[in-house]
């Protein structure tokens, strides 16, 4: 369906854009209500994310785990599953990469791919259990992935101090050496000292790969069929259980990779007792991006700008940084209730026609 604007956009994109607008408006009202100037606030918010090349680099780096978490949730969603467990998968996958990086002493060109493979494997394994539970026992993946999140949390909580303890803090792992991290000097220089790293390339590659798998491959066809109508898939001879498990594993692998970018790229150590919020933001990113890989990319970068800029906004005004989180949450609410927006759009169309 196309609306008669100057640009032709698919309906879902319009809905997402409008959700963003409404979220920003809601944020503005909130800023006003606490006695601050929304224009000033937003100006600092966006400048904080984009003002100079270093900040742009930081925004991209912040977006990187969000892209991968968003892909994880989006992939699962396209194949009929709610992956609320991205956070736990990120933790575990990130841990696997960190463990390899801290243990093996290989040249960067070799150890980095190995670390990424470890992250992918770890994330996939962590999602395997909810996948099997869903396929064989029809256990709803929302509850099982949430349980896996907490299990992951506590496993990391104990395993890091036990084997990888940092020299300074009880609650942190050892620092990764530069030769086992995603940081690249040329990239850091290019972006004026920002903490951007190779992770952004991994994320973009993942976007392309996910889009390709979903749209052009036999595997994607099967996974989507199972997600959209498992009974029809079964009738046609597609192995439903196998595909549910496969789907969760791929989603877990993507999240695990996101964890690697978070803990071996953006940061160089892992902290215990922290559940990576990016895992949950992935749900928001996926929703806003209409569960499509390209949409996820766009939404993640937008969130990256907000998160990257909120500190600057807080420094220059008295607005608490949680405004960014509130805006994002409100956007999600509007995206979730997109029917309202669709109806409003439909009502607008009627007015134009009838009048």
């Amino acid at each position, binding site marked *: 369906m196309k609306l008669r604007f100057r640009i032709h956009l698919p309906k879902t994109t319009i809905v997402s854009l409008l959700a963003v607008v409404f979220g920003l408006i809601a944020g503005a009202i*909130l800023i006003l209500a*606490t006695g601050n100037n929304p224009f000033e606030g937003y100006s600092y918010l966006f400048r904080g994310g984009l003002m100079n090349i270093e900040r742009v680099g930081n925004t991209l780096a912040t977006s990187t785990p969000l892209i991968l978490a968003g892909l994880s949730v989006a992939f699962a969603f396209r194949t009929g599953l*709610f992956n*609320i467990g991205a956070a736990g998968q990120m933790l575990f996958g990130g841990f696997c990469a960190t463990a390899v990086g801290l243990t093996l002493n290989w040249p960067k060109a070799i150890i980095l791919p190995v670390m990424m493979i470890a992250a992918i494997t770890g994330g996939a394994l962590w999602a395997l*259990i909810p996948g099997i*539970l869903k396929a064989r*026992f*029809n*256990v*709803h993946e*929302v*509850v*099982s992935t*949430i*349980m*896996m999140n*907490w*299990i992951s949390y*506590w*496993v990391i*909580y*104990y*395993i890091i101090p036990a084997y990888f303890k940092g020299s300074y803090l009880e609650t942190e792992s050892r620092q990764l050496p530069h030769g086992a991290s995603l940081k690249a000097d040329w990239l850091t220089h290019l972006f004026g000292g920002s903490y951007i790293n190779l992770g952004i390339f991994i994320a973009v590659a993942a976007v392309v790969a996910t889009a390709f798998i979903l749209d052009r491959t036999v595997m994607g066809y099967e996974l989507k069929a199972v997600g959209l109508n498992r009974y029809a898939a079964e009738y046609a001879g597609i192995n439903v259980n196998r595909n549910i498990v496969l789907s969760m594993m791929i989603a877990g692998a993507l999240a695990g990779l996101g964890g690697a970018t978070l803990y071996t790229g953006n940061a160089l150590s892992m902290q215990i007792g922290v559940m990576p919020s990016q895992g*949950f933001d992935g*749900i*928001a990113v996926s*929703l806003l991006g209409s569960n499509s890989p390209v949409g996820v990319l766009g939404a993640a970068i937008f969130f990256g700008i907000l998160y990257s800029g909120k500190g600057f906004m807080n420094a220059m005004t008295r607005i*608490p940084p*949680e*405004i960014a*989180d*509130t805006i*994002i*949450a*409100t956007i*999600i*609410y509007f*995206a*979730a*209730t*997109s*029917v*309202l927006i669709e109806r409003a759009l439909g009502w607008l169309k009627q007015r134009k026609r009838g009048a």
Partner: protein
Amino acid sequence: MWTIIQQIFPYAVAFTIPLLITALGGLFSERSGIVNIGLDGLMVVGSFAGALTIYKLQPMMPKGAVWVGLLAAMAAGLLFSLLHAFACINLNANQVISGTAINMIAYALTIFLARNVTGSGNIHIVSGLVRKDVPLLSSVPVIGKLFFSQTYATTWLVLLILVLSWFVIYKTAFGLRLRACGEHPHAADSAGVNVYGVRYIGVMISGAFSGLGGAIILVTYSGEFTGNVAGLGFLALASLIFGQWKPLGILAATFFFGFASTIANVSQVLPALAAIPGVILKVFPYAVTLIALVIFSKSSQAPRAAGEPFEHGKR
């Protein structure tokens, strides 16, 4: 062994009660047909509203502030849950996504507002509820010490709500209609039951109860609002499933979690338990939940229409 149980018991109960009331709230919502995974966020909202109210009122009315705070928490939870109700009932939004949105908004908004009150975003209350002995009953040998000594008033409130809930769901007309809406809303609709109205009530009850749950944590063992309830809302959801959507089942499930978590928390202090690796004890409740979900998967008593959008007049 017995002394260990005696020592842990009050802590286990204190952990169980907020879980129980929240799970009861979830029960009403799901029985009416609306899946509500926003229980965690609603608890946070209750914790925030309670903390704010008590913080402001305590200097003025030290005696009653706590109870006003609990009331405010219920009201806040109820109002906040309307967001979920509207999205799911009127707009037929995906209920899992709406619940997730509720959680996100709750976490972000409460900290944002709290920061405007205290710069750090944590609201500390000076005093919460005090443990008291129940008159007469606490003198009963054995069970007196265990059940009726050093209890919080809110414990008894919640247990009373449990009994009332059981009565309402199984013995009243409203309960029959509630269950019908969750199993076969079209049957209820054509019998003249206002499905939308019943579902609104179900969600609002879940909001009020979860808010109360969050505030109870505040006034019993936590003492301050920190922006989250350590995922207790999700544990309540698991208890709901574990308890097979029945009030007594939920009581058993939440009590189990209460005990398991308390044991994990105090394991360092008790020599008998100190030998077990901490990670096993911490992970234990979650792992058991997974196992229970598998065991109950075949005979699941989930309300059949829970999670499915309902449109009046659609066949």
